[in-house]
């Protein structure tokens, strides 16, 4: 990082995902008009731009890699992009679809599809960083517009983007929410989850389900023991940890979370 980007050329790519993170661009509202004067959007299928041949300054990538074709396509994108930024849980960590990594591919393909011979898939759904070098990762399911604004501005000015790694609890307490685990015994994932959402769920009195992924320096074992203490069964604890980020080592905790068992 460090180069000042004059009118950066931007692409937004999609792999296995729900399109929700791309919507963060379209949800920028007035700021989208402002960005459209500062950037050239070269490729953004959801918004209609489809020029694949050009070199790109900032490539945003949504979705995880699920097929051999995907794996080839992300390598091509990397070759044509100065910065490659993942947006959201799928591209950054495998996402919900990585839950299939826990099962055997043949088993679920046979069990689900009437014509399994049409299914052409890799054995796992994997994050972008397992295939090509990634310059920066935006966590979240989905990401929000504030993350995008901060990132694009910092990159345009040649500065490192600001990375949120603190626990959700920090933001929750800044907003003066009462802890739902302490007042209600709710199994809140906040103490393991990175902030960035504005402690949205606790602000409505419900427990965090970790949609922004693992924070730094977390202690999953201690939280799992606490969940046990407030009455959760091992399978319920397992499900709390294995929702969106089942593929992240930080959430694969023993004894309840070993995905290979």
């Amino acid at each position, binding site marked *: 990082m460090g180069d000042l980007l004059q009118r950066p050329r931007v692409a937004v790519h999609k792999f296995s995902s729900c399109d929700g993170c791309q919507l963060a661009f379209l949800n920028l509202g007035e700021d989208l008009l402002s960005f459209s004067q500062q950037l050239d959007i070269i490729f953004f299928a959801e918004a209609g731009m489809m020029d694949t041949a050009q070199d790109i300054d900032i490539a945003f990538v949504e979705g995880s890699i699920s097929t051999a074709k995907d794996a080839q396509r992300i390598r091509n994108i990397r070759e044509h992009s100065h910065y490659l930024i993942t947006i959201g849980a799928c591209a950054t960590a495998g996402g919900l679809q990585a839950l299939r990594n826990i099962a055997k591919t043949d088993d679920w393909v046979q069990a689900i599809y009437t014509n399994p011979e049409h299914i052409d898939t890799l054995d796992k759904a994997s994050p972008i960083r397992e295939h090509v070098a990634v310059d920066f990762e935006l966590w979240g399911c989905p990401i929000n517009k504030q993350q995008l604004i901060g990132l694009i501005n910092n990159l345009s000015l040649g500065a490192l983007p600001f990375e949120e790694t603190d626990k959700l609890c920090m933001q929750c307490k800044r907003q003066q929410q009462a*802890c739902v685990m302490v007042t209600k015994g709710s199994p809140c994932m906040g103490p393991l989850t990175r902030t960035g959402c504005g402690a949205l769920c606790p602000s409505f009195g419900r427990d965090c389900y970790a949609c922004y992924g693992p924070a730094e320096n977390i202690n999953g074992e201690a939280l799992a023991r606490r969940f046990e203490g407030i009455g959760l069964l091992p399978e319920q604890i397992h499900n709390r940890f294995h929702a969106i980020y089942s593929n992240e080592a930080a959430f694969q905790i023993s004894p309840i979370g070993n995905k290979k068992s």
Partner: protein
Amino acid sequence: MSFRGFLLRDHFDTLLTALHKLGAHCVGPTVMDDSIHYTTLTSSTQLPQQVHDHQGPGHYRLSTSTESRWFAWANGAQALKPLVFVPQEILWRSERDSEGNLQFSNSKQEPPLTAVIGVRACDLAALALQDQHFLDGLEQDSAYARRRQQLILIAVNCTHPSANCFCHSSGDGPEVKQDYDLLLDELDDGFAVRSASPMGEKICQQLQLEALTNSQQDEIKHANLRAIEQQTKHLPEGNLEQALKNLQGSGRWQQIAERCLSCGNCTAVCPSCFCHSQHDEPAANSMSSAHIRQWDSCFSHGHSYIHGMVIHNETRFRYRQWLTHKFSGWFEQYGRSGCVGCGRCITWCPVGIDVTEELHALAEEYDNV
């Protein structure tokens, strides 16, 4: 201070009226999100009616009682801290002018005169510590100072300490002794009133006060003694300041780290913790930026990030930093411990780590070395 008189419960709203007449915005306890929460108060009907709190390590529940009192609980997660050292604020803004030069402007908001009703002795002790930190240094913190001078402090003596309270042991309560404008003692029919400032006097003059009887005064004395007796937690005897300095290599830190989530809840609810971080939030058009200060914690990685490395890269170092600073380092900096015995860090720790238990274990280890 001597008693100014007795305010009947039915006349409590005349206190709010008096404060509103002075132009003050009233803040007081209400039941919100299953806990006692301080918010804007316009009527005594918002006060907790027939409510008790039950606190334990990592545990807070409210229950209803038949008692007619409004302050029959210990505390909630907040103290005075969020009103003076606010959790998130814009310190200044920068803007690029038409010639491309940066212009800086202070973000000076004039805070309203704010009367806080229901302040406890522990809260006042913590406020005095925050004053020391933000006001008594070489440079005053102007954002803090502006809010601080607009506070009217209406204390209510604590008669229902929680199972996590140890303010008697820390020397900060439960009886309010100083630094208030008005002090109330709650009895069944109403409130005994004391005043300790010109502002307090001004408010008293607006109140319809009855004479206080001797038996009421006795009841107040007994309530305070009972509040002391009810406190079961206490700090270890002996020189904690020295003990903690000598225990930096203790194995206890790792034992705590196996339970600790490093989530920072203890520091956020601690009424004396003052750490903060700053960052900039640029607007989408790259033409302006806001410089933001927000609560930080010695449990975050940014707290010990210095020149390419995080010094406290493991939880045991972060917890050690917190405990050692609070109970040892503060003596050197501020002449006393940083703990006022409110017990919030015990209640609001999601995994229920009890600071008094850890201090006893460490003190014992020091005695045995």
